[in-house]
Protein backbone atom coordinates (compact mmCIF):
# COMPACT_ATOMS: atom_id res chain seq x y z
CA UNK A 1 0.00 0.00 0.00
CA UNK A 2 1.63 3.19 -1.20
CA UNK A 3 0.71 6.87 -1.22
CA UNK A 4 1.66 9.76 -3.47
CA UNK A 5 4.61 11.69 -2.01
CA UNK A 6 3.38 14.71 -0.05
CA UNK A 7 6.28 16.82 -1.34
CA UNK A 8 9.53 16.54 -3.26
CA UNK A 9 12.47 16.35 -0.82
CA UNK A 10 14.75 17.50 -3.61
CA UNK A 11 13.20 20.97 -3.37
CA UNK A 12 14.35 21.45 0.22
CA UNK A 13 17.66 22.43 1.73
CA UNK A 14 18.52 20.96 5.13
CA UNK A 15 21.91 22.58 5.55
CA UNK A 16 24.82 20.20 6.13
CA UNK A 17 22.40 17.26 6.38
CA UNK A 18 20.64 17.92 3.07
CA UNK A 19 21.65 14.71 1.29
CA UNK A 20 20.93 12.38 4.20
CA UNK A 21 17.58 13.98 5.11
CA UNK A 22 16.47 13.88 1.48
CA UNK A 23 17.52 10.23 1.29
CA UNK A 24 15.60 9.40 4.48
CA UNK A 25 12.48 11.20 3.23
CA UNK A 26 12.61 9.57 -0.20
CA UNK A 27 13.00 6.11 1.31
CA UNK A 28 10.03 6.75 3.57
CA UNK A 29 7.86 7.92 0.68
CA UNK A 30 8.61 4.77 -1.30
CA UNK A 31 7.50 2.34 1.41
CA UNK A 32 4.88 -0.15 0.29
CA UNK A 33 3.16 -0.53 3.66
CA UNK A 34 2.19 -3.99 4.86
CA UNK A 35 3.18 -5.59 1.57
CA UNK A 36 4.56 -9.14 1.74
CA UNK A 37 8.27 -9.31 1.03
CA UNK A 38 10.75 -11.96 -0.02
CA UNK A 39 13.49 -11.11 2.46
CA UNK A 40 14.69 -13.66 4.97
CA UNK A 41 13.60 -13.18 8.55
CA UNK A 42 17.26 -12.70 9.40
CA UNK A 43 17.29 -9.40 7.52
CA UNK A 44 14.57 -7.99 9.74
CA UNK A 45 16.22 -9.28 12.89
CA UNK A 46 19.58 -7.83 11.85
CA UNK A 47 18.08 -4.42 11.19
CA UNK A 48 16.44 -4.32 14.59
CA UNK A 49 19.67 -5.39 16.25
CA UNK A 50 21.46 -2.60 14.34
CA UNK A 51 18.90 -0.13 15.64
CA UNK A 52 19.39 -1.43 19.18
CA UNK A 53 23.17 -1.34 18.92
CA UNK A 54 23.14 2.31 17.88
CA UNK A 55 20.63 3.24 20.59
CA UNK A 56 22.70 1.31 23.16
CA UNK A 57 25.88 3.07 22.04
CA UNK A 58 24.29 6.46 22.73
CA UNK A 59 22.36 5.52 25.87
CA UNK A 60 23.52 2.21 27.38
CA UNK A 61 21.41 2.68 30.51
CA UNK A 62 18.09 2.94 28.72
CA UNK A 63 18.81 0.51 25.86
CA UNK A 64 20.18 -2.97 26.50
CA UNK A 65 22.85 -4.38 24.21
CA UNK A 66 21.42 -6.19 21.18
CA UNK A 67 22.72 -9.53 22.48
CA UNK A 68 20.38 -9.15 25.46
CA UNK A 69 17.29 -8.81 23.26
CA UNK A 70 14.72 -11.55 22.81
CA UNK A 71 13.49 -11.15 19.23
CA UNK A 72 10.99 -13.14 17.25
CA UNK A 73 9.29 -12.78 13.87
CA UNK A 74 5.52 -13.06 13.51
CA UNK A 75 3.64 -13.21 10.23
CA UNK A 76 0.06 -12.20 9.79
CA UNK A 77 -2.54 -9.93 8.30
CA UNK A 78 -4.11 -6.78 9.61
CA UNK A 79 -6.01 -8.65 12.34
CA UNK A 80 -2.75 -9.98 13.77
CA UNK A 81 -1.13 -6.56 13.46
CA UNK A 82 -4.07 -5.00 15.28
CA UNK A 83 -3.75 -7.58 18.08
CA UNK A 84 -0.01 -6.97 18.35
CA UNK A 85 -0.52 -3.21 18.60
CA UNK A 86 -3.53 -3.36 20.93
CA UNK A 87 -1.47 -2.92 24.12
CA UNK A 88 0.04 0.25 22.64
CA UNK A 89 -3.42 1.71 22.16
CA UNK A 90 -5.02 0.61 25.38
CA UNK A 91 -5.83 3.02 28.16
CA UNK A 92 -3.88 0.93 30.63
CA UNK A 93 -0.63 0.80 28.66
CA UNK A 94 2.13 1.76 31.08
CA UNK A 95 4.96 1.82 28.59
CA UNK A 96 5.17 3.15 25.08
CA UNK A 97 8.35 2.41 23.16
CA UNK A 98 8.12 5.21 20.63
CA UNK A 99 6.54 7.84 22.86
CA UNK A 100 8.89 6.84 25.68
CA UNK A 101 12.37 5.51 25.05
CA UNK A 102 12.72 6.52 21.42
CA UNK A 103 11.48 10.07 21.91
CA UNK A 104 13.84 10.53 24.84
CA UNK A 105 16.67 9.12 22.76
CA UNK A 106 16.01 11.61 19.99
CA UNK A 107 15.55 14.49 22.41
CA UNK A 108 18.71 13.70 24.37
CA UNK A 109 20.78 13.44 21.19
CA UNK A 110 19.46 16.78 19.95
CA UNK A 111 20.21 18.43 23.28
CA UNK A 112 23.70 16.92 23.37
CA UNK A 113 24.28 18.47 19.96
CA UNK A 114 22.87 21.83 21.05
CA UNK A 115 20.08 21.57 18.47
CA UNK A 116 16.43 22.40 18.98
CA UNK A 117 13.47 22.09 16.61
CA UNK A 118 12.31 25.56 17.62
CA UNK A 119 15.60 27.14 16.54
CA UNK A 120 15.63 25.05 13.36
CA UNK A 121 12.04 26.06 12.53
CA UNK A 122 12.92 29.73 12.91
CA UNK A 123 15.40 29.35 10.05
CA UNK A 124 12.75 28.13 7.62
CA UNK A 125 10.91 30.47 5.25
CA UNK A 126 7.39 31.70 5.93
CA UNK A 127 4.73 30.61 5.11
CA UNK A 128 5.60 27.05 6.14
CA UNK A 129 5.95 24.36 3.50
CA UNK A 130 5.37 20.65 4.17
CA UNK A 131 8.97 19.64 3.58
CA UNK A 132 10.23 22.01 6.26
CA UNK A 133 8.96 19.34 8.71
CA UNK A 134 7.97 21.87 11.38
CA UNK A 135 7.22 25.55 11.89
CA UNK A 136 6.69 28.02 14.71
CA UNK A 137 3.34 29.77 14.96
CA UNK A 138 3.26 33.50 15.72
CA UNK A 139 2.39 32.62 19.35
CA UNK A 140 5.61 30.59 19.61
CA UNK A 141 4.06 27.12 19.46
CA UNK A 142 6.06 24.56 17.50
CA UNK A 143 3.94 22.60 15.02
CA UNK A 144 5.12 19.59 13.01
CA UNK A 145 4.00 18.83 9.49
CA UNK A 146 5.97 15.65 8.83
CA UNK A 147 5.41 13.46 5.82
CA UNK A 148 2.44 11.32 6.67
CA UNK A 149 1.33 9.21 3.70
CA UNK A 150 -2.38 9.40 2.93
CA UNK A 151 -3.14 5.72 2.30
CA UNK A 152 -6.48 5.46 0.51
CA UNK A 153 -8.63 2.66 1.88
CA UNK A 154 -6.19 1.64 4.60
CA UNK A 155 -7.63 -0.29 7.54
CA UNK A 156 -7.45 0.98 11.10
CA UNK A 157 -4.49 -1.22 12.12
CA UNK A 158 -2.39 -0.05 9.18
CA UNK A 159 -3.23 3.60 9.80
CA UNK A 160 -2.25 3.24 13.44
CA UNK A 161 1.05 1.54 12.66
CA UNK A 162 2.03 4.02 9.93
CA UNK A 163 1.21 6.93 12.25
CA UNK A 164 3.23 5.22 14.95
CA UNK A 165 6.20 4.63 12.62
CA UNK A 166 6.03 8.19 11.36
CA UNK A 167 7.72 9.29 14.56
CA UNK A 168 10.78 7.31 13.52
CA UNK A 169 10.91 9.26 10.27
CA UNK A 170 10.93 12.57 12.10
CA UNK A 171 13.47 11.32 14.62
CA UNK A 172 15.72 10.02 11.84
CA UNK A 173 15.60 13.47 10.21
CA UNK A 174 16.05 15.21 13.57
CA UNK A 175 19.12 13.09 14.30
CA UNK A 176 20.72 14.21 11.04
CA UNK A 177 19.68 17.83 11.44
CA UNK A 178 21.18 17.81 14.94
CA UNK A 179 24.41 16.31 13.57
CA UNK A 180 24.46 18.78 10.71
CA UNK A 181 26.07 16.30 8.34
CA UNK A 182 25.26 13.28 6.17
CA UNK A 183 26.90 10.57 8.28
CA UNK A 184 24.04 8.22 9.20
CA UNK A 185 26.24 5.50 10.72
CA UNK A 186 25.18 6.32 14.30
CA UNK A 187 21.53 7.17 13.59
CA UNK A 188 19.42 4.53 15.44
CA UNK A 189 16.30 5.40 13.46
CA UNK A 190 17.76 4.67 10.04
CA UNK A 191 17.76 0.86 10.56
CA UNK A 192 14.11 1.08 11.64
CA UNK A 193 13.28 2.92 8.42
CA UNK A 194 15.30 0.39 6.42
CA UNK A 195 13.14 -2.26 8.05
CA UNK A 196 9.92 -0.56 6.95
CA UNK A 197 11.29 -0.28 3.42
CA UNK A 198 11.92 -4.05 3.41
CA UNK A 199 8.61 -4.98 5.00
CA UNK A 200 9.60 -5.50 8.64
CA UNK A 201 7.47 -3.79 11.28
CA UNK A 202 8.89 -4.02 14.80
CA UNK A 203 6.92 -3.65 18.00
CA UNK A 204 8.83 -3.49 21.28
CA UNK A 205 6.91 -5.28 24.03
CA UNK A 206 9.32 -4.41 26.83
CA UNK A 207 12.93 -3.16 27.00
CA UNK A 208 14.30 -6.64 26.24
CA UNK A 209 11.59 -8.14 24.00
CA UNK A 210 10.47 -7.19 20.52
CA UNK A 211 8.38 -8.73 17.77
CA UNK A 212 9.21 -8.14 14.13
CA UNK A 213 5.91 -8.31 12.30
CA UNK A 214 5.75 -9.02 8.59
CA UNK A 215 2.82 -9.41 6.26
CA UNK A 216 1.81 -12.92 5.39
CA UNK A 217 2.57 -13.66 1.74
Amino acid sequence: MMAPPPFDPGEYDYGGATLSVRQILRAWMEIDWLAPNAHDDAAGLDLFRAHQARAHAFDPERFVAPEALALRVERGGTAELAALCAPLRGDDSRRDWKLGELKRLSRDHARARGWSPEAYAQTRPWPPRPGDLCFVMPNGALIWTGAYPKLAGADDATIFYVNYAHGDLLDACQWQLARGDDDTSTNPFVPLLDGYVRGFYPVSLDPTTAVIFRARG
Partner: protein
Amino acid sequence: MRISARDRLVIERARAKLAGARVDFALAVRALREAVEETIDDGRVFLLGSAGGEPILGSLISGVGIVDGARGVELVRVAGAPIALERFA
Protein backbone atom coordinates in the same frame (compact mmCIF):
# COMPACT_ATOMS: atom_id res chain seq x y z
CA MET B 1 -16.59 8.86 19.98
CA ARG B 2 -14.01 7.39 22.35
CA ILE B 3 -10.88 9.40 23.22
CA SER B 4 -7.85 7.53 24.54
CA ALA B 5 -6.68 7.99 28.11
CA ARG B 6 -3.51 9.71 26.92
CA ASP B 7 -5.42 12.17 24.74
CA ARG B 8 -7.89 12.77 27.56
CA LEU B 9 -5.02 13.57 29.93
CA VAL B 10 -3.53 16.05 27.47
CA ILE B 11 -6.91 17.70 26.92
CA GLU B 12 -7.60 17.98 30.65
CA ARG B 13 -4.18 19.50 31.30
CA ALA B 14 -4.63 22.00 28.47
CA ARG B 15 -8.09 22.96 29.73
CA ALA B 16 -6.74 23.38 33.24
CA LYS B 17 -4.23 25.90 31.92
CA LEU B 18 -7.08 27.86 30.36
CA ALA B 19 -9.09 27.70 33.61
CA GLY B 20 -12.31 27.07 31.72
CA ALA B 21 -12.18 30.38 29.90
CA ARG B 22 -13.24 30.80 26.31
CA VAL B 23 -10.03 31.81 24.62
CA ASP B 24 -8.83 32.46 21.11
CA PHE B 25 -7.18 29.76 19.03
CA ALA B 26 -3.63 30.98 19.62
CA LEU B 27 -3.96 30.63 23.39
CA ALA B 28 -5.63 27.26 23.03
CA VAL B 29 -2.75 26.04 20.85
CA ARG B 30 -0.20 27.25 23.37
CA ALA B 31 -2.03 25.43 26.17
CA LEU B 32 -2.25 22.29 24.05
CA ARG B 33 1.42 22.44 23.20
CA GLU B 34 2.41 22.85 26.85
CA ALA B 35 0.12 20.01 27.91
CA VAL B 36 1.62 17.70 25.27
CA GLU B 37 5.14 18.53 26.46
CA GLU B 38 4.17 17.77 30.06
CA THR B 39 2.58 14.46 29.13
CA ILE B 40 5.02 13.10 26.54
CA ASP B 41 8.76 13.74 26.47
CA ASP B 42 9.50 15.67 23.30
CA GLY B 43 5.82 15.32 22.40
CA ARG B 44 4.82 16.81 19.10
CA VAL B 45 1.76 18.72 17.94
CA PHE B 46 0.96 18.12 14.27
CA LEU B 47 -0.84 19.96 11.55
CA LEU B 48 -3.53 17.35 10.82
CA GLY B 49 -5.42 19.15 8.08
CA SER B 50 -7.96 21.92 7.89
CA ALA B 51 -11.67 22.55 8.37
CA GLY B 52 -13.43 25.61 7.04
CA GLY B 53 -10.06 26.99 6.04
CA GLU B 54 -8.76 26.77 9.61
CA PRO B 55 -5.85 24.50 10.60
CA ILE B 56 -6.49 21.42 12.75
CA LEU B 57 -3.63 20.84 15.22
CA GLY B 58 -3.23 17.75 17.37
CA SER B 59 -2.06 14.15 17.61
CA LEU B 60 -1.04 12.32 14.47
CA ILE B 61 -1.38 8.94 16.18
CA SER B 62 -4.97 9.38 17.34
CA GLY B 63 -6.11 12.05 14.87
CA VAL B 64 -7.61 14.10 17.72
CA GLY B 65 -7.00 17.82 17.43
CA ILE B 66 -8.40 21.31 17.88
CA VAL B 67 -9.71 23.77 15.33
CA ASP B 68 -11.01 27.32 15.44
CA GLY B 69 -14.67 26.61 14.73
CA ALA B 70 -17.83 28.65 14.51
CA ARG B 71 -18.64 27.99 18.19
CA GLY B 72 -15.14 28.62 19.48
CA VAL B 73 -12.20 26.24 19.74
CA GLU B 74 -13.52 22.75 19.09
CA LEU B 75 -12.17 19.27 19.61
CA VAL B 76 -12.32 17.14 16.46
CA ARG B 77 -11.09 13.82 15.20
CA VAL B 78 -9.60 13.64 11.72
CA ALA B 79 -10.50 10.39 10.00
CA GLY B 80 -11.06 11.46 6.43
CA ALA B 81 -13.44 14.37 7.04
CA PRO B 82 -13.06 15.99 10.51
CA ILE B 83 -15.65 14.83 13.06
CA ALA B 84 -16.63 17.28 15.80
CA LEU B 85 -16.25 15.80 19.28
CA GLU B 86 -16.90 18.58 21.79
CA ARG B 87 -16.03 22.16 22.68
CA PHE B 88 -12.41 22.52 23.72
CA ALA B 89 -12.33 26.10 25.02
